[in-house]
């Protein structure tokens, strides 16, 4: 087995780094001993000669030259060349999907975006009409791009983190702790005396 296939070839100019030499050497030893587990990616249905599929904007002449006679892996079903594609939206669509009904999930996402945009743009035009004289102040404009609103909402919904020093075995690590959660617990501790009011 030829071990040079273990590193992904940098044919598409993406700049992916080959594995360090030491790692290659150890892999080569591994191959000599056990040729059956030579592949880095086990359980792949494709031999290592297969290329990753690419999208039209990335297909330079050189890339196509290389692709013309090489076998290519089947494209994932959600791979798209759309100019409007966004990975976060795609991921979120998959998360809200139930029972594999992706069509419904996409419709729900589209309607949500439309609603956000409709509200904001109506507000924008209404304020413009109200102050029709002079250009409106750029700072006071509502954010109309539903994608930006969505990304901001996603950001807001993430838990807040902070670093706290934790000593383990004489070494101080910087551990990540969810701050809000900690504060909540501290409050709960402080108000434990009133716990019996909860169901009263």
């Amino acid at each position, binding site marked *: 087995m030829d071990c040079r296939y273990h590193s992904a070839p940098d044919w598409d100019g993406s700049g992916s780094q080959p594995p360090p030499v030491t790692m290659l050497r150890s892999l080569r030893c591994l191959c000599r001993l056990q040729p059956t587990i030579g592949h880095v990616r086990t359980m792949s249905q494709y031999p290592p000669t297969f290329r990753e599929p690419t999208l*039209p904007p990335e*297909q330079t*002449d050189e890339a*196509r*030259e290389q692709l*013309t006679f090489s076998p290519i892996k089947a494209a994932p079903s959600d791979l798209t060349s*759309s*100019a*409007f594609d966004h990975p976060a939206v795609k991921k979120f669509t998959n998360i809200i999907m139930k029972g594999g009904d992706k069509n419904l999930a996409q419709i729900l*996402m*589209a309607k949500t*975006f*439309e609603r956000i*945009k*409709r509200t904001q*743009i*109506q507000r*924008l*035009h*209404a304020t413009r*009409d109200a102050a029709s004289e002079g250009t409106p102040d750029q700072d006071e404009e509502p954010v*109309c*791009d*539903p*994608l930006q609103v969505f990304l901001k909402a996603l950001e807001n919904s993430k838990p807040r983190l902070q670093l706290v020093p934790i000593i383990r075995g004489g070494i101080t690590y910087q551990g990540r702790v969810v701050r809000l959660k900690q504060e909540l617990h501290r409050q709960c501790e402080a108000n434990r005396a009133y716990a019996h009011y909860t169901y009263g």
Partner: protein
Amino acid sequence: MLPRCRLTRLCWLGLRPMSAAAAPEPAPSVFRTSVSDPREHSRSDLGRLYTVDREDHRRLFQVTGLRKSLSAQARTFCELALMVRQPALNVLDSLRASDPSRPSLRFLLYGPYGGGKSTTVAHVLHWAAASGWLLVHFPEADRWGLRFREVTASASDPQAVDHPVDAALWLAHFRAQNAARLAELDLRTGETYTWSRREATEAGSPLTDLVELGVTRGKHASQCVLALLAELKAHASAGRCRLLMAVEKVNAFWCDSTARREDGSTVKFGDMTVIRAAEQLLRPDWSGGAVLTTIAPVRGGPEGSHLPRHQLGADGWRALEPFVPIRVDDMSRAETYTMIDYFLERRWLQAPAAATERGKQELFFRSGGNPGKLAEICSMY
């Protein structure tokens, strides 16, 4: 340019080199026309949008009359802008050239779903209102039998049914569209209408009395519509007014409705008082006006083709013939780009990609130039 041998190879593989696939640059679109008076629209305004005067917009489409998507768009954009397209200009040219003493011209707009038939009707309505015509506008005729609020047995005819609420609302729509013009024309009723033992509309009273009675007394609203349209037909034929009868989804008139009588029998559209009122204006026995109809697949009607013979069926075809068929098709590439530019100007397209040539190409490709589809796709970005 690629070397010759590689070109041959790519072609053999069914691939096209990128340089050859690049589409020709469409001309930069000046998407608005300053002519906001529909009477002055001409070929030079083709493919551009004009803004409907705010007062006209409120008057013509205050109660109902626009498709839900278009009225939502108008509300969001704080203006109603319609594209001047060939089908509307064809209708307007024919209307301008028509002789009021001859039987009324009848147009039938047909075409794919979302192609702009209702928008064309809105444009023609605006022209007719600006030209001093009276408007009899039935938006979404299928509503009367499929999405009605209430039906009751008619007092005058045991077979017929009335729409107490919908007919009153329709009369309110009629009043909003025509109040100013009716006051100018001062049309009077030619007959005496007796509604009950105490209520009657004497011959010679203004037509607005009929409208007011219907709006306030839902019980008689359907009969009021019947009387009003008969009166208008007589006035138009006598040359006292010009009348535009516009019916959207006219093919519903020859379908079964979901309404039931008390004995459980199905009500046909033709058994409804309001539809009977409308049908008398679809007949070719009057002059001084025009009839503008559209067809579109309705629930319970034939599925598949949107072509007139299929959608109207034998009865509908016989009732409407002869008519001028006008196809309202998807937009051209230039028209689609104009629409995209308009959306960009109204900030409706927010994604930065939409302003690029590649984004516009994609929107045109995905919508196929269909205005409804384009609006649907653009609503997310």
